[in-house]
């Protein structure tokens, strides 16, 4: 067991190293002058040179790579050209906002995905299944930033169901004292359910959007694995004893059908924490790392952007490694095989 843990961590380490090299390659070895890009279109040659010197871009490539690796190992993600602050600190400051949003989105995606997937499997060939398939196709083809605008248009401007998207709390609610950085949790810990409720309400719209759009992949997997489980020999054995359908659905169906979902969660997490997140945070004035990446992009702050990408890459590798462990622990067939 320990051997396989060590092996997986080794693979993860190699992947992280690979990601580091890849990002360096992309940002500094591809054609395109980082200094010029960072300085912007209207900068003078002097300004470009200044930036070049400041960030060591005039040094030979190997020296740059060495410096980059040294920084990487120390978790130094570079310095923002715009603010002159360490990127790591700026990201960590904004991380709780994105995490709170991302985790709620993930929860919504998983719950929605499992419920719809099981329903589709049970209603196979009938109306329920067809409707859910239509949902899957529409949700997979919807641009998250578009539906966010439509949702804001409808729910905020037209119907007033949600308050204006000005960030994590509506006007008139000061943020709770910092414990975890999660406003809902911190507000509850401070005995302030009103603020907790307000924070939850602002979380709801973006989380519903991200979660719903991330659900289709889970729906598809749950549907096919539930069908497979329900048509399996062991489900047939249960039916031969006359167990009630609920028991067969949960103990034979879901128990086995949910295993593949574990590995799929990685993809979903990638979407709600980065891929989709970076596209909507600025629409909701959400002070998270996605909005940070967006601003860095607009202002050509290549180093801040690079720091963000490294951060995401490392986090993604770690999340997927964790999920692999979870899967191996959850599936008795695999767990035993590893030991022998």
């Amino acid at each position: 067991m320990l051997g396989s843990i060590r092996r997986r961590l080794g693979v993860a380490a190699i992947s992280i190293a690979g990601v580091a090299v890849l990002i360096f390659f992309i940002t500094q070895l591809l054609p395109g002058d980082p200094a010029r890009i960072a300085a912007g279109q209207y900068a003078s040659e002097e300004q470009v040179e200044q930036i070049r010197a400041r960030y060591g871009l005039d040094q030979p490539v190997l020296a740059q790579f060495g410096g980059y690796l040294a920084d990487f190992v120390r978790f130094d993600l570079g310095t923002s050209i715009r603010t002159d602050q360490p990127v790591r600190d700026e990201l960590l400051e904004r991380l709780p906002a994105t995490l709170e949003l991302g985790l709620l989105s993930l929860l919504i995606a998983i719950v929605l995905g499992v419920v719809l997937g099981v329903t589709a499997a049970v209603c196979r060939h009938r109306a329920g299944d067809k409707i859910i398939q239509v949902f899957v196709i529409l949700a997979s083809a919807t641009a998250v930033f578009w539906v966010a605008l439509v949702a804001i248009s409808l729910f905020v401007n037209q119907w007033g169901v949600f308050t204006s998207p000005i960030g994590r709390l509506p006007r008139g609610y000061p943020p709770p004292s910092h414990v975890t950085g999660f406003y809902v949790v911190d507000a509850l810990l401070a005995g302030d359910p009103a603020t907790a409720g307000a924070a939850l309400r602002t979380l709801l719209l973006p989380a519903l959007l991200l979660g719903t759009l991330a659900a289709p992949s889970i729906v598809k997997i749950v549907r096919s694995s539930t069908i497979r489980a329900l048509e399996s020999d062991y489900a047939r054995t249960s039916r031969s004893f006359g167990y009630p359908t609920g028991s067969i659905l949960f103990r034979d169906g879901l128990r086995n059908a949910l295993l593949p979902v574990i590995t799929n969660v990685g993809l979903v997490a990638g979407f709600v924490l980065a891929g989709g997140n970076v596209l909507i945070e600025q629409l909701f004035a959400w002070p998270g790392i996605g909005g940070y990446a967006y601003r860095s992009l607009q202002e050509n702050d290549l180093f801040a952007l690079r720091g963000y990408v490294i951060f995401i890459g490392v986090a993604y590798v770690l999340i997927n490694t964790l999920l692999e462990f979870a899967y191996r622990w959850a599936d008795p067939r695999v767990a035993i095989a590893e030991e022998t």
Partner: protein
Amino acid sequence: MTLLNVEGLAVDTRGGHSLVRDFAIEVAPGEVVGIVGESGSGKTMTALSLLGLLPEGVSVVSGEASLAGMPFLRDGRVLRRPNATMIFQNPTAALNPTMRIGAQLDRLLAFLGKKGRGRAEELLESVGIGEPRAVMGRHPHQLSGGMNQRVVIAMAIAAEPSLLIADEPTTGLDVTVQAQILELIRSTVATREIGVLFVSHDMGVIAQMCRRVAVMYQGEVREFADVDDIFHAPGDSYTKELLASAAEQPRKVGDGTRTG
């Protein structure tokens, strides 16, 4: 005095293709009746149809069946669940891969209203499992096919059925294990006076286990008679062929593989 009586059973696919036609059979209490035929003859579908376990797209279209006097199939429609259980060809696949054996036994005993300390262990011991606690802590894929089949038989008997349907229960198992499982079935029948419907493609096994046998070919019953009569004086042309090829069939080699 018949235990199981089936008449006019017909099974079709959704597309109208006929899998079983006009099947009839009877089983007396304490008797093992066989259904023999090659693959595709419809014998497994027949067995599954009696317990309502047909796969998607396959259904019973007509037939009458009764168990211990109580009809459970009329006009091709299921009236109630018969007091019968089934054991299957691939015992490891027939058990839930993510549940320990003990949990699966407890689930059945709870459903039957028979929960009680040590009930599960007793059950496993009654089918010849020497170390029930060890087995109960394991998952199906950690146990051999023979062991899993014992577990399935244990579960099938725990439900105290009047009829046991066995679909190729020993195919794929080692020769020695085969013999043990067959002996287990025989002793179960003897002690509990239940009837068994034994489905197989192996004439040799049928001959060992059954008193009467129905020969199936392409969905129809060609002959239904005493095993002795069939072996020595087969009435049907197909039965003759089946016996002839079975005789030519080289005996299984000791390590459990078939040759030829």
